[in-house]
Each structure stands twice: as structure tokens, then as C-alpha cells.
């Protein structure tokens, strides 16, 4: 039986590059155990931490190591996805999201927010800040299965082009990246928007003005009231 360790992680050897590594952040021990198991059973390596601060420490983004980026610091374990609870003491999931998106080294990592509350302004804010997805708790296996989609394709894009920040990505890469962006838009809007591949969020905020959550027929997941619907096929602008 695990101790009440605030950090638990699996040993990842450099050769295990094909297995995705998820950094899970949640102050609730019960939720950490559940998300950890959900991820492990979905063939992910997991590092579970109990706060945003610890998450930043793990990434090497904490206050003391701020210079780590300029010194070419490479975290020992590559992170393919960050999943974080929204409501946490000291640093909320939203604040953590912002810090990650502000970092040139880590902004490409997809960040998913979990919350027990389905508050649309909260969801909007997170998406605008660059969150990949927003999951209403309790988290289920079907949610994690969906997340795997982000991670796999993100890695593929990474392999194709090193510097995504500059927006220079091959067509296939852009297509994949776009397919995995979650948007609060009508399907028609997705089709007409151009395939710009910058990583800035302004386009998301203009498109997310509609308070209603659309449910494209292509999405196989649960009801629109609980979940955002994913545009799984059509092209849409990336943020």
C-alpha cells in the first residue's frame, strides 16, 4: 500500500520513449489514486503530484530554477501530457496552466483541466489560456482514452518538426494538431477558419463567444452538458 507520498512516479528508462508519460496534479489523494490507475490501465507512465508548485518543480520551472531554461535544462522525464485539477490551494490549475503556457520549453505540452464543476466561464477561460481539454469530474476511463489521442498525435508532430512555436509545421502535422483542439464552436465556423498554426490563443476567444456547447455528431463521447465536444475530424484554426 502506498504511503501518503506526495509524489509517486514510475521509473522511465530512456528507451521507453514510445510510452506516454503523464504528469497528474491533484491535491486530493483519492483523486490522485484514481487518475493514476486510470492512466496506468491505459498504458501511460504516471507522475502524480499534489500541487501546482510541485508540478513546476518537477518540470524544473520553479522559482529557484528559473534560469534552467536558458541553460538548456532538460527534465529527466519527458512529459507528454499534464492533467491538473482546477481547484487547488495556493496555485489553481488555471494558474498552473498559465505558467506552463508562458514557458517556451513546456508550452507545447497539452494541458487538460479537471473540475468537479461544470462552469462555462471557467471552461472558457481555461481554453482561452491554451488548455487542450476540460474534463468534468469524476474522471472516467472514456475520458482518459480520449486524452491518449492528444498525446500520440502531439508526439508525432514533435517528431516531424522541432520548433512548433515558429509555426513551421508540415501539412500533416498541422492537420493532426488541429484535429485535437477542443473548441466551443459551431461546426460551420470550424470549416471556414484558416489553418494558421501559431500557438497564440486569440482565435479561440473569438470563437468561444457562444455560451452553448455544440455537439458535433462525429464525437462519440458523453453528453454535451457534462463534457465539451471534440471536433474530431474537421479542420479548425489552431491556437
Amino acid at each position, binding site marked *: 500500500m502506498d504511503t501518503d507520498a506526495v509524489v509517486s512516479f514510475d521509473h522511465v528508462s530512456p528507451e521507453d520513449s514510445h510510452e506516454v508519460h503523464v504528469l497528474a496534479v491533484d491535491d486530493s489523494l*483519492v*483523486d490522485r489514486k*484514481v487518475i493514476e490507475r486510470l492512466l496506468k490501465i491505459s498504458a501511460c507512465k504516471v507522475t502524480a503530484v499534489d500541487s501546482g508548485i510541485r508540478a513546476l518543480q518537477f518540470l524544473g520551472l520553479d522559482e529557484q530554477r528559473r534560469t534552467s531554461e536558458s541553460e538548456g535544462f532538460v527534465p529527466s522525464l519527458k512529459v507528454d501530457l499534464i492533467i491538473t485539477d482546477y481547484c487547488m490551494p495556493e496555485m489553481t490549475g488555471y494558474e498552473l496552466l498559465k505558467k506552463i503556457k508562458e514557458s517556451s520549453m513546456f508550452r507545447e505540452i497539452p494541458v487538460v483541466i479537471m473540475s468537479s464543476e461544470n462552469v462555462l466561464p471557467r471552461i472558457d477561460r481555461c481554453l482561452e489560456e491554451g488548455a487542450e481539454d476540460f474534463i468534468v469530474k469524476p474522471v472516467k476511463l472514456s475520458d482518459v482514452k480520449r486524452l491518449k489521442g492528444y498525446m500520440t498525435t502531439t508526439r508525432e508532430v514533435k517528431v516531424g518538426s522541432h520548433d512548433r512555436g515558429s509555426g513551421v509545421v508540415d501539412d500533416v502535422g498541422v492537420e493532426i494538431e488541429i484535429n485535437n483542439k477542443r473548441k466551443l464552436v459551431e461546426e460551420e465556423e470550424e470549416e471556414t477558419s484558416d489553418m494558421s498554426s501559431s500557438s497564440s490563443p486569440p482565435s479561440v476567444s473569438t470563437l468561444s463567444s457562444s455560451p452553448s456547447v455544440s455537439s458535433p455528431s462525429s464525437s462519440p463521447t458523453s453528453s454535451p452538458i457534462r463534457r465539451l465536444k471534440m471536433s474530431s475530424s474537421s479542420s479548425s484554426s489552431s491556437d
Partner: protein
Amino acid sequence: MLGFGADLLWADMNRLLAFLFHQGVLDEQFLQLQQLQDEASPNFVSEVVNIYFHESEKLLNNLRGLLMEKELSDYKKIGIHLNQFMGSSSSIGAKRVTNICVAFRAATDQSNRAGCLRALEMLEHEYCYLKNKLHELFQIEQQRALVAGVRYPVQNQ
């Protein structure tokens, strides 16, 4: 005959589970937890639930302490504890407990002390019931595992 015993216990377990679902004590999230249990993690559900019990008792004590204060209660702090309790309860599929937390939180939002006290009593009662039922469930499961684990190569009786 032991194989027969294991079957009876299995039926007991399912009957209890069905009852708990029917009563709304548990919801499908509990089933989700069961799906996460396998040979690699054979005690997952009881492990998580025991963590839940441990945390819940602390939270309930905190809530009672805060509401019993002679001075005006710190509703914000109560709300924080409640959110935690609500979150973990919903994560294990404890539906009735979660629902009472929602009502409790509404009373907190209105700084309604009497309402909060009533909600706390209901919460304690409901939590107690849940704990007893889940203990019962785990006991049956343990018995079944014990019984099923004894092998009789040939039934000579």
C-alpha cells in the same frame, strides 16, 4: 461444497451492490472503480475507499468543529472542506453523500447556520451508512476470495 459457498457469496455481493445502486447510495462511478481493479491491482477499490474513509473522517471532524464554534462560523473554510469532501465522494461514486454536500454547500453560501447543522447531521448519518455498507461489501468479497482460493482437486463427498 466450497465452490457452492463461493457462488452464494458472489450472489450476496451482487445483491448488496444492486441494492446500493437502487437506493442511490452508489452510482456508476463505483462501477468504474471496480473496472480498474484487476490482477495487477487486486485491491484497488478497497484501497481507494479506505483512503476516502480516512480523509472523510478528518473532514467531518473539521466541519463539526467549525460549525460548533461559538463565534460566527467561518463559512469560507467550511466551503473548502465541503468541496474536498464532495469531490472525493463523487470520485468513489458515493452519490447520496455527494448530494447532501451540495445541499450543505447551499446552506453555507447563505450563511445559514441552522441549515448547515442539519445538513451536517444528515451528512454524518449518510456517511456512516455508506461506510457500514461498504465494509459489508468488502467483507463478503474477502470471504469469497478466501473460499474461492481453497481448491479441491476432486469432490469426494
